[in-house]
């Protein structure tokens, strides 16, 4: 087990490394760096920028190094908690991200919990009541959730909630709480604002997960060991939860690995529509503006979150499924 965890951890590091390279390439991709345009601007306003000055500026932003060393420099600084400075905000990237990280994690976690809390029971119901009215209803609702573009759903739900429930639209707080320090009331206010983003972000994931759960469970229900258990005289309910649900939940847990990127990716769009103070919109803006350090760090942080999530789900899976546990041990 330990060796497996270590190995998995090693993979995680590799994935993170590749991500960091990708992030670096992504932010380098659009032509020109900000310094070039800065110098252009200086020159245009009548300044004869001498070469020493340019060199100093280049050095200051590590732009004088060859590209691979720039990357190393970036990584090295990041490992030391220095994420650079955002050009647009003129603030340290770390501050900007830290300010939004807690809510990002909160929204993602709530979405994840919502997704699983809803999907697993419905999946079980649908599988055990295959082709019943309820199964069809959930299927159709789930499919509609899967089929609706998230931004559309967000917009409509936001409007509906505003018009019919009087909730302050957009954002995660009512105006009177936005500026207030944390308190019980503020937390409750946050909880009131969470449902719409959580539903919108989680809708597609939930619908997908219901299908997976239903499918897996249907498969498992056909399996011989279920009949064995039934032939042993185990009651239906106990049988359901002890065997097929247990087995069917395994792939579900391993899907955290792809549910999480979905959530975080979906969060970007939804957060822009709903005006959530999360990392998503920050990243979007940064990418549009080529605010390279902010963009790169945001991608890194978001991917880091997903990779960590995947790592945890992998460990969980091994812990839950003896077959994999032994297989991994044997290897």
């Amino acid at each position: 087990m330990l060796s497996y965890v270590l190995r998995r951890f090693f993979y995680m590091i590799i994935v993170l490394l590749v991500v960091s390279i990708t992030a670096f390439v992504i932010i380098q991709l659009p032509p020109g760096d900000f310094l070039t345009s800065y110098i252009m601007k200086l020159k245009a306003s009548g300044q004869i920028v001498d070469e020493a000055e340019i060199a100093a500026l280049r050095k200051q932003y590590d732009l004088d190094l060859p590209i691979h060393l720039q990357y190393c420099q970036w990584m090295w600084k990041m490992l030391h908690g220095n994420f650079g400075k955002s050009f647009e905000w003129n603030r340290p990237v770390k501050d900007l991200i830290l300010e939004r990280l807690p809510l990002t994690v909160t929204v993602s976690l709530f979405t994840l919990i919502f997704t699983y809390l809803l999907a697993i029971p419905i999946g079980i119901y649908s599988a055990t009541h295959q082709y019943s009215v309820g199964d069809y209803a959930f299927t159709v609702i789930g499919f509609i959730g899967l089929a609706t573009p998230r931004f559309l759903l967000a917009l409509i739900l936001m409007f509906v909630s505003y018009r019919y429930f009087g909730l302050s639209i957009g954002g995660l707080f009512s105006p009177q709480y936005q500026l207030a320090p944390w308190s019980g009331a503020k937390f409750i206010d946050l909880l009131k604002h969470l449902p719409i983003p959580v539903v919108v972000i989680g809708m597609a994931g939930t619908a997908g997960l219901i299908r997976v759960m239903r499918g897996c469970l249907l498969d498992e229900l056909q399996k011989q060991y279920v009949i064995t258990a039934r032939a042993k005289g185990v009651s239906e309910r106990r049988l359901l939860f002890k065997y097929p649900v247990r087995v069917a939940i395994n792939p579900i847990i391993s899907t955290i690995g792809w549910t999480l990127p979905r959530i975080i990716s979906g969060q970007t769009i939804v957060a822009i529509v709903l005006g959530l103070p999360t990392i998503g919109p920050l990243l979007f803006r940064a990418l549009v503006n080529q605010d390279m350090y902010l963009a790169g760090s945001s991608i890194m942080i978001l991917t880091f979150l997903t990779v960590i999530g995947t790592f945890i789900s992998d460990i969980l899976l091994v812990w839950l499924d003896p077959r994999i546990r032994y297989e991994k041990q044997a290897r």
Partner: protein
Amino acid sequence: MGLPIKFNKLMGLIGAILLLGATPAAARYNEAPMLRTKVAAGKLPPVEERLPEEPRVIEPLEEIGRYGGTLNTADLSPFNAIEGRTLRHHGLFRYSGDCTEIIPDIAKDYEVSEDKKTLTIYLRKGLKWSDGVPFTVDDILFWWEDYMLNKELSPIVKKFWKPGGGLAKFEKVDNYILQIHFAVPYPVVTLLGHSWNSAQTKLYDPKHYLKKYHIKYNPEANELAKKAGYTRWWELFKAVRNPGYDLWNLDLDLPTLDAYVIKKVASTYQIWERNPYFWQVDTAGNQLPYIDRIVDRLYENQEILNMKVTAGEIDIVSFNLLLGDYPLFKENEKKGNYHAFMWKSAIGAAVAFAPNQNHPDPLLRKIMQDVRFRQALSLAINREEINEVVCFGLATPRQATVLPTCSYYKEEWAKAYATYDPQRAHELLDKMGLKWDKGRKYRLRPDGKPLNILIEYYAGEGPKTAICELVKEYWEEIGIKITLKPEDRSYYAKRKDAGVLDIGLWHLDCVTELYGYGQPLSGRLLSFDGGWGWAKQWELWFNTEGKDGEEPPEEMKEFYKDMEDWASARTKEEYTRLAQKIFDFHAKQLIYIGTVGMSPWPAVVKNNLKNVPTQGYWSWDSNFWIAFEPAQFFFTP
């Protein structure tokens, strides 16, 4: 919260009476309750000591207000937080709403010498920074000598301060009188109304606060910078000093002369609180501002902002609204408990196009430099339709030029090539030899490639997208393939500065008499950039006196000379003659291609917010909210 209104009024009355007597007395001025408690606690000196000897007296628009409340406003970009900025900022001078007058604000008065070579600025005695330190000519000299003339902090002194080739001289007469001398007659004061706009024209900095970051005053400034994570002293200095536009990133301790002081900066909002040393009072002697606090929220996008507006969560907003959304605001007026209305906007063109005369691609440059091409583009635009579709028919279809309110205005400028005539446009392009492709869909460049033009633009401030989409259709009808690419403001600025746009696109403001004149060689119409970046190489050539960039054709050199001369014009006749020569050239050359101008601009103000006018000019030229004296806005309970 505040005092009962009656008491307030009474105090105002007393103040007014005492003001007549003009003798400093204990009860001359009234102050906000939140400050009074501080005074009582000994944390602040009394209001009389905080105010200058002669505070600026503001006559409230409707009535004497009452203290208290939080003003919620909204912005969309940290780079461009204009709504919040113009609600609290003050400069030495400002313009009247219609930009015909210069009004001293922080400064008490000014005087231009007979020969127009000397400007004298009088400051208010006893006016203090927000930390209580007096504001004197030294602060201006600090800005000039230690910031503007410091090679590291500002590597360049714009030609702006070098009219006729000689550097301006700043002379301290006494602590409150400053004289600026120029080599040639120079109307510099006409541009000081916009002092907040740029680092070049800010004119003052808090010397007592900033000097510890300056190597001249603190030999250890470099060490200080290193401690703060910078490598050199000037980096830290620049970061601490309010750079003028980047108000989202403020040193919380930086003293200011504005109505409000920054209290908190987050990535989604800023909180500002009243400046206890603010130097304005109302006619009743109440120290302004009335409102305690400004909260400027940063919303992720236009739609969220619109919803917040209709939900009545924003007290005041205008800059960030779009004309097309006006029906939405109007229909939700009751529910949101606000009123929506329209300003007159002093805009020459809601969207103006400037084909890049220095395009990096030589083939495209040749096409763009052909005046027939620009004429064809202009003739192909159906301005009536744009007006109808985008502006509810409320704007004026016109060419991109100055407003009719200018004394030198000629109607023909607005009419030049501004009528919809696609047939003539076709003929002009045919004459240029731009052939059609096989399917007669698009025209081809001389090298046989399709004539593709990318229009990059910033989508904010006005209905740019809607107009662009229509113009795209018009231009494709005459066979020019157009790709639209909306960009963020700062990114657009980068592209523009690099001089790589095919066709620059901006709204045409700065076309009022005073402001239009106030920006010689750097403003909208009177520069080789102006937001369009239409001739960056020529601009470079002029700015470096021929050392860099490309040499412009003779007519451009003459144009440049005219602009320089206009700036130094001494007589009214000379002023008018040169202005007309310049804009005749504009109209003939079609450097800028206009669409519709003088379009209305929507605003939304909560019903309980008083003293906010519902008509007037809304424009960059008159500093948006600044022209309406936001310090005298107040909330009724």
